[in-house]
């Protein structure tokens, strides 16, 4: 009796973000998975499509005073303040373990100026084991009065060009959702040479403690993430996928395979799981398995078949 015949074959989960090939479309979102070591006992890291590490700056940053996080309805606010060990210690202390993960390693970078981003890209290009850079443009441009790079198309374009010039690594630009027209931002970045887009970063939110009349975050405002923002993220991914031709990584409130599939259908080539790593550390592996199950149920042999597969019209 050949049992193998009744077991449906494993669907092909491979996807490519331009030059960056992934074993499957499921990555972890920056700032929600540390430097991967934190989850090594809970997740088989080599099963992941990729890990995006916590945002790295040129110099170490202490971050904001506490409280830094606050739970909201089906979401959370964070104002970590971009705490990180800085690029030097990242390379010396964090990269050795990251090289052993057995999956794609993407380094998220952030800066106060275009020069910062360029310098980071230069530094990191020489480091073995880094597969791509993800440029976080939701940071304030100190030279332009603190307006976020990600809210003005010319600034976002300039950062993209500067980073591309300094590196041969694939460059993913991560968009901020706090804009009137996400398509304008996406086009500006795509035309400036980005290899792929990540969206979305957090929405800007706030919480207040009625009893004490104080803000819930020491920083007053913070980034809203989690299932609460999924509908906004999905809409933006769909709008951008309909407008630009470079691949998109969908991010925002993804916690289940169904969530991930919705983003793929909307046109994302891959997804990142963020806040869900906190409430369910097993989320990423469950999502990978769930996508495979879905493809089998739907009679699809490859995940490619569903990317952008949203059915419109009657």
């Amino acid at each position, binding site marked *: 009796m050949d049992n193998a015949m009744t077991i449906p074959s494993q669907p092909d989960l491979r996807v490519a973000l331009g030059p960056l090939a992934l074993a499957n479309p499921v990555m972890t979102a920056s700032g929600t998975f540390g430097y991967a070591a934190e989850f090594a006992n809970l997740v088989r890291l080599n099963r992941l499509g990729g890990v995006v590490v916590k945002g790295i700056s040129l110099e170490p940053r202490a971050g904001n005073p506490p*409280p830094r*996080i*606050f739970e909201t309805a089906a979401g959370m606010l964070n104002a970590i303040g971009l705490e990180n060990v800085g690029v030097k210690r990242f390379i010396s202390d964090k990269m050795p373990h990251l090289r052993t993960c057995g999956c794609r390693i993407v380094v998220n970078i952030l800066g106060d100026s275009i020069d910062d981003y360029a310098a980071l890209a230069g530094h990191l290009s020489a480091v073995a084991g880094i597969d791509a850079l993800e440029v976080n443009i939701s940071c304030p441009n100190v030279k332009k009065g603190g307006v976020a790079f990600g809210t003005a198309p010319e600034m976002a374009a300039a950062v993209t060009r500067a980073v591309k010039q300094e590196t041969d690594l694939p460059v993913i630009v991560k968009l901020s959702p706090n804009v009137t027209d996400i398509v304008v931002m996406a086009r500006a970045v795509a035309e400036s040479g980005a290899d792929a887009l990540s969206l979305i970063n957090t929405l800007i939110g706030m919480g207040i403690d009625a009893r004490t009349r104080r803000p819930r975050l020491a920083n007053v405002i913070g980034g809203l993430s989690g299932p609460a923002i999924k509908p906004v993220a999905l809409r933006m991914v769909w709008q951008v996928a309909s407008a630009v031709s470079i691949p998109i990584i969908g991010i925002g409130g993804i916690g289940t395979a169904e969530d991930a599939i919705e983003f793929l259908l909307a046109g994302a080539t891959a997804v990142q799981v963020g806040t869900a790593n906190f409430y*369910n550390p097993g989320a990423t592996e469950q999502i990978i398995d769930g996508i495979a199950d879905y493809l089998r149920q739907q009679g699809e042999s490859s995940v490619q078949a569903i990317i952008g597969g949203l059915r419109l019209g009657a």
Partner: protein
Amino acid sequence: MPEHQEKSIVLSIERLSPSVYRLTLHAPLIAGEARPGQFAMVACGSTLDPLLRRPISIHQCSGDGRLQLVVKVVGRGTQLLSEIRAGQTLDLLGPLGRGFRLSPGPVALIGGGIGIAPLLFLAQSLMQTGQADASCRVLLGAQSGEDLAPLAAGFETLGCHVELATDDGSLGRHGLITDLLPAHLPNLGKVYVCGPHPMMAAVAALCASAQVDCEVSLEAHMACGLGACLGCAAPGADGRYKHVCKHGPVFKAEEMAWTTR
């Protein structure tokens, strides 16, 4: 000590006082490795609201895989935990964080309110390993006797010397438990404390001037419990932030900045 995501089975839930519940769980992976002062991140419901797990200290473990938590209802998450019933499952992540560093010698354990919960596990370990003896002082305080009595149970049978205080005077001394500490300090090698922040600050200050080692178990809002989100920052004495879930929750008192909060 690897962390586990473990679907534990609720063996029983007991109401110890109007707002305090004890959950006995079957969680062999976590119970098998937990150390005093460590905690678990507990999923309080099955829906997306509340979203995040809640940090709860390990109250007691047994060799047969049983694990106890003591939970005080203060908000929605702990309310949902108090409504759980025997037979249901509870998703735990643990054991997490750095617990108490046990060392031999004359010690005091100081607990306030629900902060008493992790101290029973500590007292058991100290007494059972012989690192502490009948000289072990346990100073426990709470609002009222109703709150304090169930939390204070268990220490005396271990052979510790227990002293109690309540804010309303309904059990033990009327006043703050920290008032009882100075009298003991000259005879102590180490003090372990878990309770409200002002209480820990007071104990840390007393120990610092008496040059007695002091370990404190801090609280912070936590999202991951794994050192990944960097949400649980607490200011250290060196001007840098520590992460309560990973560097703590138990810290040497002198590592932390006590004035800036």
